[in-house]
Each structure stands twice: as structure tokens, then as C-alpha cells.
């Protein structure tokens, strides 16, 4: 197990280096002139633009630019944005918000999703099952920005102006603590939550039909033990796989939710940097997300062994 872990971690290093090169190349190939973009709708002053290009090596070849980046990175320097801000500062400012939001959303999606799935599976065809199926279908078919704006307007604005109930902040404000994350996390979790519920339902229903479950029931075990220890543990494997991959996308793909609730997280930072063609920021953020994905995947693989003792690593 330990050796397996170390091997996986060592494998991650070339993946990471290859990815930075690839991403840097893609960022380099993005169309547009980032210096002109700084000047907005006016023409960038030729002299100022030339000085900035020189300062940020934009007038050099791709390989030269990548070399500057990678040598800086080797010294722990993530570089500067074209407006003179430290990329590391930008990432560390945005990261905590994203982690908090993603973890809360992840918790909501895992707990509520799995519970709803279990209840639906155990009451197949009955009212509760139909309710879960119908409501998840609704959530999946409505786009996130609609859910987001509707909840913001109804719970944030209307509840306060019409009823004086000021619990859900309209937009993110750090001073509100966890309250500030509630609505956005719910919105962010909603789609995945629906998938998790459906996946749990199907997976559990299938395992409930398996021979070993029938055996367990025949042995006279209580139903809670049959479901909890025997069926669920096996049924959870596809769900854990889904959740592991989803953690990564919750971190990097929360652009829309972040925008609606004005959370200045990693997703928004990445989208903005792509728009502005800020190569150094893009590579920094993406590398970080790759690490998150790698760690989450590793954790998932480790969990398999816990859930199903037949799986061994060497």
C-alpha cells in the first residue's frame, strides 16, 4: 500500500510538468494581444506597449517565454500578471473561497444525494421514489444560472424587502461567515446532487438483487445491516468514483455560481485570465487544479480498498 502510494505520487510529477508545458502552449496560442486588451477600447500607446512587452518577454519566442516561466517557477516564483500583481498572491486570495465553497457543496451533494438515493432505492416505485426521480430531473434540466438567479432574487432580495427576513445575503460577504456560502453551495451542488441521487438509487437497487444480499437476508440479518454493511458498501463504488472526479470540477468549474454570488474564486480567476490571455495565471491555476484532481483520484483509489476488501494494491 505504501509503495503503491509513493509510486503514484512519483507518476504525478511528469504529468504535472507535461501539463504546464501544454497549458502554457495553449495560452500562448490564444488569439489576441493582451497588452492592447489592457487599454480597452482605446489604442495602447505604442511606447508603453513596447516597454510592457519587453518587461514581460512577450516579444520573445514561445520556448524563451516558457523557459523564463519555468526557471522562475523552479525558484518558487509564480511570476507576475501583466498589471504587476504577483500570481501567487492572486491564487492564494482566490483559493480559500473556492475550497470553502467546494467543500460545502461537496458535503451537501454527498450527504443529501446519497440519502435521497438510498431512500428512493428502498421504496422503489412508491411515492418517495417518484418524488426523488421527478425533482432530480427538474434540477438537471434547469441551467445553473437560472437556479442561481431565481434563488438569489427570491431568498436574497424578496425575502428581505417584502418580509424583512434577512438571512440569505444577496451576494458573498466574508463577514457573514458560513451563511454567505449556503446559497451558492446549494446552487453549485444541485446538479451533481441530482446525479448522485440517481446513481445511488440505480446502483443500490442492482446490488439489492445480488446473491450475497439474498444470502444475508436468508441468514436472518436485520434489514439495516443487510443494506448498510452488505449492499451499500458495494453499491458505493461507482458513487465514490463520481464524487472524486466531481470534487475537481467543483473547484475549477464553479465559474457561473461564483459570478452570480460575486465570489472571487479560482473559477472566475481562470475564466478572466483566459479572456485576458494571462499565461502565467492560467498555468498557475491549472497546475493547482491538476494537483487537486490527482489527489482526489488517489483518494478515490484508496477508498476502493476500504469499501471492497477484495481490492488490493501492490
Amino acid at each position, binding site marked *: 500500500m505504501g509503495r503503491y502510494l509513493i509510486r503514484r505520487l512519483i507518476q504525478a510529477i511528469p504529468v504535472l510538468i507535461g501539463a504546464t508545458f501544454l497549458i502554457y502552449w495553449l495560452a500562448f496560442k490564444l488569439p489576441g494581444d493582451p497588452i492592447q486588451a489592457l487599454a480597452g477600447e482605446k489604442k495602447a500607446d505604442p511606447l508603453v506597449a513596447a*516597454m510592457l512587452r519587453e518587461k514581460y518577454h512577450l516579444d520573445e519566442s514561445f520556448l524563451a517565454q516558457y523557459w523564463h516561466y519555468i526557471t522562475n517557477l523552479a525558484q518558487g516564483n509564480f511570476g507576475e500578471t501583466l498589471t504587476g500583481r504577483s500570481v501567487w498572491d492572486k491564487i492564494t486570495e482566490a483559493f480559500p473561497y473556492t475550497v470553502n465553497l467546494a467543500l460545502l457543496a461537496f458535503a451537501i451533494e454527498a450527504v443529501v444525494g446519497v440519502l435521497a438515493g438510498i431512500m428512493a432505492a428502498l421504496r422503489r416505485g412508491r411515492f418517495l421514489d417518484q418524488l426523488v426521480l421527478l425533482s432530480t430531473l427538474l434540477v438537471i434540466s434547469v441551467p445553473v444560472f437560472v437556479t442561481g438567479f431565481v434563488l438569489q432574487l427570491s431568498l436574497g432580495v424578496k425575502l428581505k424587502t417584502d418580509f424583512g427576513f434577512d438571512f440569505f445575503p444577496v451576494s458573498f460577504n466574508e463577514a457573514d461567515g458560513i451563511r454567505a456560502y449556503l446559497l451558492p453551495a446549494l446552487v453549485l451542488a444541485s446538479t451533481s446532487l441530482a446525479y448522485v441521487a440517481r446513481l445511488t438509487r440505480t446502483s443500490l437497487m442492482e446490488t439489492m438483487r445480488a446473491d450475497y444480499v439474498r444470502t444475508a437476508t436468508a441468514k436472518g440479518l436485520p434489514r439495516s445491516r443487510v443494506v448498510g454493511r452488505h449492499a451499500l458498501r458495494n453499491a458505493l463504488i461507482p458513487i465514490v468514483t463520481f464524487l472524486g472526479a466531481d470534487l475537481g470540477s467543483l473547484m475549477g468549474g464553479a465559474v457561473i455560481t461564483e459570478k452570480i454570488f460575486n465570489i472571487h474564486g479560482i473559477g472566475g480567476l481562470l475564466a478572466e485570465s483566459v479572456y485576458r490571455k494571462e499565461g502565467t495565471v492560467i498555468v498557475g491555476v491549472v497546475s493547482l487544479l491538476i494537483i487537486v484532481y490527482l489527489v482526489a483520484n488517489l483518494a478515490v483509489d484508496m477508498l476502493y480498498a476500504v469499501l471492497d476488501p477484495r481490492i488490493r494494491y501492490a
Partner: protein
Amino acid sequence: MRGATSAKWVAGAVVVAMAATACGTGKDDSGSSAGGSITVVLGEPQHGLVGQNTAESEGAEVLNALFTGLVQYDNKTNETQLAVAESIDTTDSQTWTIKLKDGYTFHNGDKVDAQSFVRAWNWGANQDNAAEGLPFFAKIEGSDELAPGKDKKPTATELKGLKVVDEKTFTVKLKAPFSQFKTMLGYNAFYPLPKAFDADPKKFGEAPIGNGAFQMDGVWEHNKQIKVKRYDKYPAEGRAKLQGVTFKIYDNLDTAYNDLRADTLQIVDKLPVSAMASVSQEFGDRYIYKPESGVGYIGLPLKTNPEAFGKVEIRKAISMAIDRDAITKTIFNGTRKPADDFINPLIPGYRKGALGEVGTYNPTKAKELYTQAGGIPGNKIELGYNADGGHKEWIEAVANQLKANLGIEVTAKPFTKFGDMLTELGDQKYKGAFRMAWSMDYPAAENYLRPIFSKVAIDNGSNYGAYVNEEFETLLDQADKTADPAEALKLYQQADDVIIKDLPYIPVFTYMSSSAYSKSVKNVEIDAQGRMDLAKVERN
């Protein structure tokens, strides 16, 4: 309908103004006793908060609260008024003597002296600092030594043209006479800087020490907020009423608007498009709708495509085939007004209806002109626009109008970003017509002419059509040399007449700014650049 709303607003403004003066005479020292704090909208500024390095609206908004320049502009008339300057005099429009008022201090207690302006301008003019405001110092004598060009080193660190006479006086010598210099001085590149700036300009930009009505309250919390508080040693007449203002940083105007509705945000000076339909009902008198300094044009590549756009009759025909009323009303919901001069209506020197016939929708005459002039080869043009700024609808409307009225085959061509289109125009790769816009740096008629249509603007400005007219150049030069402001303005208007005759670009609309504020504040005024005049705002 539109006339009615703006009339209502004017009436409202008069009432507010009267209330404000009544307040002023009622309690003399209300500055220190009044208070309260508010939160207003902001987008993350691009650079550190240094006036010389700020050329975008968000940074300018904060700087406007933290700094006071030599002159400022009246919120309603846009006339230039003295602020920190006691007097700005010249006899030949080339050498200017600037005397400063007593009583202005930086937030760290230092006096605002002549040296603080000279320091700031020298820094901005030096190419090693690559400051966005650098081109504004090009007119001052000695600027070439500080900005000799790429791959060369500056040979001086101080502008030869700036001379400190005494603590409160300095003189500025320009390379050539420029009558609008005084008007230009309100732009944020000309703000002063305290001695403390020299130690660490980068750190300074995170928590600038200014001389304005508000001072920093802590440092800039990036992507979150910038807090400022009242500076109590500011000269009494301009002192802020509020105790503090938090600029909360948004990157989505819809969210800010929802916060405004819930009164967690008190002033929003840029409304989202989605709000335009209902905002006047929802906010009533608290909705401010007034002209803004921008002008939108259809640009024409005169030099790279003379076959299509070289004849003035063709340009006139295009202009007269555009139904400006329909575009501003139906597509922009009244957030734009039909253009009737190259100069924006806000600016002293604007003449209503100056475009005359060419600015009036007349499809019959347009078609006549077009046919007489022999049309465009191939009867086909492209109309370029940037797809990221909500321009698709009006550009397509123009394309359809040209199709219907002139029978030209017009293709609307999207570019990813405005900059991409500019680059292709600059490289002469793109030969179609294009959307173009200009918004002023300072409220002078000159600022709507030289930076867009002069020879120097081909390389250093927004003259993407490479339009050249010697008569226009001569008139501008004459106007620059004229010391008498009224006389100078007349000459600028004559220059304006030249481009009205030539139509190098076709003005289509001018912009309107729309802002709204919540019930808990009053005395909200928005200036011509669309910035909030925060020192005047009070809490209810």
C-alpha cells in the same frame, strides 16, 4: 416619453441642488458631525492606485475619491473649475504658471506643494515606469529625453519644462502652444504624489496617500473591497459628508443590482442591461439617467480601401441610410441618443444638429447619392465588430438598414475582441467598415478631434481610417495657439465642420449613463465620466 423623463430628472436635480445649498447654509460645520457609511459598486481596478498609471474607469473611480487635481469639472456643465490650483495663467498658451491654494494636505500631513506635482509628472513621463498615462506628458518640453523610445535609455529623470518657482508655484513649458492644457489638468495622470511615493511606488499603489476628500482605511483588499474614510483636514467647503465608503468589488452587474435592491449596496453607477426595462419604475427619482461622454461610430478604412469608401458621397449615403432613432430606441432602450455632432453633447463647444443633413435619416436621398457616385465595387462590404461587448444587435441593424436602403450586400463580421479588430486594421489586413467608439479623457472639444482624426493619431491614437486633411490639421494648430478660450473654441468648431463635411467616421450615437441609488442615501450626483461624486453624498 423620453423627453418627459429627462425633464423630470432636471426638475429633480434642481430640487436636490436647492436642498443641498439650504443644508450648507443651515449648519456650517456639518462636515465633522454628519456621518454614516455606505457601500458602492466597483470593478477590480487594473493597476495599483496611482493616477499616472491608471487609464481605466474603475481605478479612476477610487482615485477620484482619494485625490484632488489642479482643476475639476462641474458635474452639470463640465466647465473646468480650479481645485487645488489658485490660478493657472498663460499669455502664449505655451508657458503656464500654476499657483497652488493653501490648505490642501496629503493624508499623511505633508503639504501639497509644487514639488508634489512635479514629482508625479516626472514619474509618469519616464518610460522605465511604463505608466499608462505616459502619452499625456508628451506635450511637455523635455518629455523626449524621458521617453526616447524602446531600446534606448532615458537621458534625464526630470522634465526640462517643469520649473518649481517656490513652494506654491511652478511653471510648465510645453513643446508647442496648447490652449486646452488647463482643461487637460483634471485628468488623473496629473494628480500630485507625496514624497512617500518615491520609497516604494508598488506598495504605494496598494494604499495610496492622496490629497482628496477621502483617505484609505486600511489597504486595498484585492477582489474584495477598498475602504476609504473621510479626511477631516480637507478644506471645509469640499469636505465629505459621509464617514466612510466601501467600494465593494463585483464582476457581475446583475448581482450588484440585486444587492442594490436589497439595500446592501447603496449606489450602482453602471446598471446591467437586464435592469433597463424596469429600473425607472422601481427606483423612480433615485434613477439617474444622463448623457455620458462616449460616442459610437461606424469607422471607415479610407486608406486601405479607397475603392469602397474613398468618395465622400458614398460616406454621406451610408450616414443618411442609418436610422439612428430606431437604433437608439429599439435596440438600446434609450441608453443611447442619436449623434448629431462629432463632439459629445456634454462638452462645451457641442452644437446641436451640427451634422445637419448627413445626420438625418433620408433613405431616398441616400440611395440617390449612392447611385450617382457609382456605388461600391462589387456592391459588397463587411462591417466588423467585437463580439464580447453587446454590439452584435446594433451592428446587424445597421447592416440591414444599409441593405434595405442602399441595396449593398453587408456582412456583419464578428471579432473575438476589440483589440483583435484594431490589430487587423493596423496591419491593413481588414478592409471592411468597423465599429468604433471614443470616450473623452478630459472635457474639451479638442479631445473629440485630434485623438481620432488627426495625422498623429494614425500611429498614436484612434485614427484607424488613416484620415488626413491638411485644413483640419491647420485649424487644430491654430486653435491650439489661441490664448483666448472663446476664440480657440470657434477654431475647434471649424475643424469639426471639416470632418462633418468629410465624414471620415460616421457618428451614430452618444452614450447615456444610468445609475440608481437606494432609499438610504441622498444627494447622489454622477459626473460626465460616469463617476460618483462621493463627497456630496449623505445618508438619510
